């Protein structure tokens, strides 16, 4: 008798559990559907703001859609250079950030000083100024970088300084016990760094790097200032100015940047999900 009661209770509990789970799932689905609906409404409001129509006395912004149609493809062609600059810069930034983070953890005073000096100098000056510095100052030393490489150097150095904090946090996230265990196994400090600390630190650092890469695709617009990198912003400013349609041209650039960010954010969330599988 007692056994069947237990069996019935368990079945009931399972049923209850399933019900609870289904309710939660349904609520989550509802939430997602409502978020999507709200996004759609916000997007419609944004589109209405640029329709040029007046509705219930609300004024909206009038744009020259003929200009937009005929210049969309040209401005969009700048995506290649925007991505090229961003990818090259993030590679340089990662190298510099890793070196700066290792330097920051160093016990050798000049190395520690070099690392902190670099981070302080770069974080203490505007990126816009740094881009012009490499474009204008280096030729005096006989180093003539193309606009692209001057921009990549400036962006890479700038982001490297900020990202060094990410790598430093990653390196310190690896417990002291692991280093001690590695030492007990007879590994040298460099072996410990290469085999134990770095692999874990890099996994910790990847999501914030993705975040910085997304930010960089937009900061790469500053490289247009030197005039030699024909990326989205440069294309937009030039066709906008020559044909007196700067507002339209900048809005088109904004759309391209937003689209790129949406795609990159999606990829980043995929990578994060993948990485979190390792966490148990």
């Amino acid at each position: 008798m007692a056994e069947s009661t237990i069996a019935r209770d368990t079945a009931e509990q399972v049923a209850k559990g399933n019900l609870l789970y289904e309710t939660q799932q349904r609520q989550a689905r509802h939430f997602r559907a409502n978020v999507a609906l709200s996004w759609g409404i916000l997007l419609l409001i944004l589109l209405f703001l640029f329709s040029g129509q007046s509705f219930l006395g609300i004024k909206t912004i009038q744009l020259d859609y003929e200009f937009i149609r005929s210049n969309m493809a040209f401005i969009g062609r700048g995506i290649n250079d925007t991505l090229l600059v961003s990818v090259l810069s993030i590679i340089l930034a990662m190298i510099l950030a890793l070196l700066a983070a290792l330097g920051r953890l160093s016990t050798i005073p000049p190395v520690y000083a070099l690392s902190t000096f670099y981070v302080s100098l770069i974080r203490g000056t505007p990126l816009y100024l740094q881009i012009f510095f490499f474009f204008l100052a280096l030729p005096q030393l006989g180093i003539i970088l193309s606009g692209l490489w001057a921009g990549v150097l400036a962006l890479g150095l700038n982001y490297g300084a900020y990202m060094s904090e990410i790598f430093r946090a990653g390196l310190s996230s690896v417990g002291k016990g692991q280093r001690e265990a590695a030492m007990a196994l007879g590994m040298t400090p460099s072996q410990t760094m290469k085999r134990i600390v770095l692999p874990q630190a890099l996994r910790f650092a990847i999501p914030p790097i993705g975040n910085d890469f997304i930010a960089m695709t937009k900061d790469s617009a500053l490289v247009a200032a030197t005039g030699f990198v024909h990326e989205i912003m440069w294309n937009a400013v030039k066709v906008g100015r020559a044909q007196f349609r700067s507002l339209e041209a900048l809005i088109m650039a904004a759309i391209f940047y937003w689209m790129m960010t949406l795609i990159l954010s999606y990829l980043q969330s995929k990578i994060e999900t993948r990485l979190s599988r390792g966490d148990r």
Partner: protein
Amino acid sequence: MKRLYSVLVIGIAASLMLAACGGGGASKADNLLDAIKERGYILVSTDPNYEPQSFLNTAGTRASGTKCPSDTLTTAEMQGFDVDVAKAIGDSLAVETCFATPSWDAITAGSWADKWDVSVGSMTITPARQAILDFSVPYYYTPAVVAVRADSGFASLEDLEGESLCAGAATTYESWLNHDMEALGLPDSSVYAQAPNVTVVALETDQECAQAIAAGREDFVGYVTSETVVDANIAAGFPVVKLGSPVYSEDLAASFDKSSTLPTDTLRAEVDNLFKAMHNDGRLTAISDQWFGADLTQAPK
């Protein structure tokens, strides 16, 4: 991890190699003209912010097999009066014409670090610029005018006393507004009027002035720029009118960097001869008619 390291190493190596390439190859030429003929293209800087002088041809595609460096534009991607004049220079030297597009203040500041050979960008000859740049003979002349909002009711320069006017930064229009006749450096016969005493608002280019007014901003009542630009503004439907007659006339010429590594004298002589020939045989007039609908190539009397 090994793979990550090799990616990093390759990344660094590639960066260094490409950076080294930016320095340019060695050349045997001992003057700029020979260097241009040797490499097969002339690199002209122009500021594609101005229709009809110099603007992008968004429908044009880069010719395959072009000699132009990748960060420069080809003749197919550019159009305008200055662009056609630049093409004529390239053609007369039997080389391809390529366009570098640095910002205007980088061109007028001099010290080009050999990044381009010559500027063909409607540049006014001024004494301040002559200290750092060498100029060709003028290839055309534009009158500078004051433009004001159409509904402002201003009728003469005197009416503008105490108001705000806009001009592009580092332009002769800004110098004129600031009563800086030394920087303007024009002969008295070319200056037709003195600027009223106004607050000067200097924006990045002249084009921001007109667009700010069209957008409904009220930071200034008008702006000073070349008559050709105002005509283009009016043609684009901007609510502006020209105020009276031109205030001065500018001699516009091609310019060369005094700090160029290779001497520019032979190239300058070629360009001078070409411009003189084009003035004489009517080729400049034809290009001017095509882009401005008027002949701006005659010196003011």
